[in-house]
């Protein structure tokens, strides 16, 4: 597709004479000057008014403005490092950040995707077999029960899970999920802090944690089960937004040291570096035997594992195993299987 053919008016045939009887001509004539901020206030007002109504001139304006924005880019000049902290501090002072809202919306986004996927299910589909939770209805009941755990900890209502398999499982899940998101947006839980103590789900008994992590986990689990459902019906796996992938990975890396201890697989004094590529990826150095809960540390590592970020998130969900995750290892070969095994046990199935 040749862009210029889609932009009527982008030609050399245009008059350079100001012609106020023809608003397009007048505006197009001034558009170059306008795009470099070289018009007077009356002209700017006239052009802005016309651009709000005229898509053709609007497209041309956007093109010229975009070109102008690169004029200075031949000389990039990073500001002094101290400016970053000043800018962010002033921004937060002018308008308070709302991370609770962000994490709630990330979770709501995954809920919407799962709900959409459930739209296409027929009555008979609910009994379709699902390897981990017997059938599709069982999968949804499992998810609902874990959502209910957080609802309980936030003093929000808990929905009873229907005993019989069927579309009722969807209604219950959706109501429970909405109670959580609405409660956190504007309801009784909206004033809560992300440091509030709640329980996190695990394969075994729930473990104590913070709301910050629980919300990441709810979105993570909702995504995982969306893809479980997709697997049953032969659909393409989904990929969460990069920032959500990043949150999942940050949480997993923080949980790893304690999980190694719980599995009796601590390696005191040693550390692993995990380098994950692709959107949402990054680098983490995880102490393998420290008693510190912090999880992320700098310094030398005994082993480096490289993999794809989303694939590693799937490993954490136990949807990949150390054997099926594509990865490379440098350094101590014996440590990598231990780290990957424990990482694959962090989720709740």
């Amino acid at each position, binding site marked *: 597709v040749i862009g210029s053919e889609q932009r009527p008016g982008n030609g050399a045939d245009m008059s350079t004479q100001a012609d106020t009887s023809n608003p397009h001509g007048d505006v197009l004539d001034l558009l170059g000057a306008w795009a470099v901020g070289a018009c007077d206030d009356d002209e700017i007002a006239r052009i802005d008014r016309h651009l709000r109504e005229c898509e053709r001139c609007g497209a041309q304006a956007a093109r010229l403005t975009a070109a102008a924005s690169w004029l200075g880019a031949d000389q990039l000049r990073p*500001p002094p490092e101290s400016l970053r902290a000043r800018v962010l501090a002033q921004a937060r002072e002018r308008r308070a950040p709302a991370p609770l809202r962000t994490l709630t919306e990330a979770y709501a986004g995954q809920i919407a995707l799962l709900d959409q996927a459930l739209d296409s299910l027929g009555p008979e589909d609910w009994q379709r077999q699902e390897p981990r939770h017997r059938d599709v209805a069982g999968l949804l009941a499992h998810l609902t029960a874990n959502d209910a755990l957080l609802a309980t900890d936030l003093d929000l209502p808990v929905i009873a899970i229907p005993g019989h398999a069927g579309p009722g499982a969807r209604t219950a899940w959706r109501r429970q999920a909405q109670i959580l998101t609405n409660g956190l947006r504007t309801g009784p839980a909206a004033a809560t802090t992300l440091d509030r103590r709640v329980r996190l789900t695990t394969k075994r008994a729930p473990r104590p944690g913070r709301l910050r992590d629980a919300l990441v986990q709810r979105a993570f689990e909702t995504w995982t089960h969306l893809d479980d459902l997709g697997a049953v019906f032969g659909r393409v796996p989904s990929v969460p937004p990069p920032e959500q992938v990043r949150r999942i990975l940050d949480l997993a890396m923080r949980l790893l040291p304690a999980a190694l201890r719980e599995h009796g697989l601590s390696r005191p004094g040693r550390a692993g570096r995990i380098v994950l590529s692709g959107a949402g990826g990054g680098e983490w150095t995880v102490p393998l035997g420290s008693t510190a809960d912090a999880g992320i540390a700098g310094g030398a590592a005994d082993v480096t594992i490289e993999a794809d970020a989303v694939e590693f998130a799937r490993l954490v969900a136990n949807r990949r195993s150390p054997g099926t995750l594509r990865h490379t290892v440098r350094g101590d070969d014996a440590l990598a299987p231990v780290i990957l095994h424990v990482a694959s046990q962090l989720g709740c199935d």
Partner: protein
Amino acid sequence: VLPDEDDVRLHERLIAGDDDALAEVYDRWAGHVHGLAMRVTADHALAEDVTQDVFVHLWERPEAFDPRQGTLRSWLCMLAHRRSVDHIRRRIARSQRQVLSADVTDHSGVDEGVILETEAKVVREAVRALPEAQLDAVLLAYFGGRTYREVAQELGIPEGTAKSRLRAALSSLADRLEAQGILER
């Protein structure tokens, strides 16, 4: 042209109050915003003020940016340019500005502390490929903060010619940047 997907997501996160999103935008574009402010104001303190204003404004009023109208980068630069020009229009008297004309249109040298990325080199080539007459007009207006009438006066050309040179310069710069994949068609 479809809105940039990264921009759309960042925009939503900014509206939701996610300050990590602001940090991401800053890390990505602060060099462009600050570099532009430095070129126009030639003043370290002013350039930092402009940079701060631009990103704080985005945080305070994220809905003022519309991803359907152009990229976030382009919007930030537009804002940085407007504020920088406001500064110099207020600060510099006309007589002094005449003296500065030569500096503004001298595009051969690269200042100290400047990063030349691959992309920057491509942009530089595209800018330098413009006909001298168009380049002088566009640099005088964009970096010198002149109106097209002042450009006409300083270059001794009719106002209509100044307007058409500005438009021709940007249009052929857009052509070149599109051909290089820096601007989307």
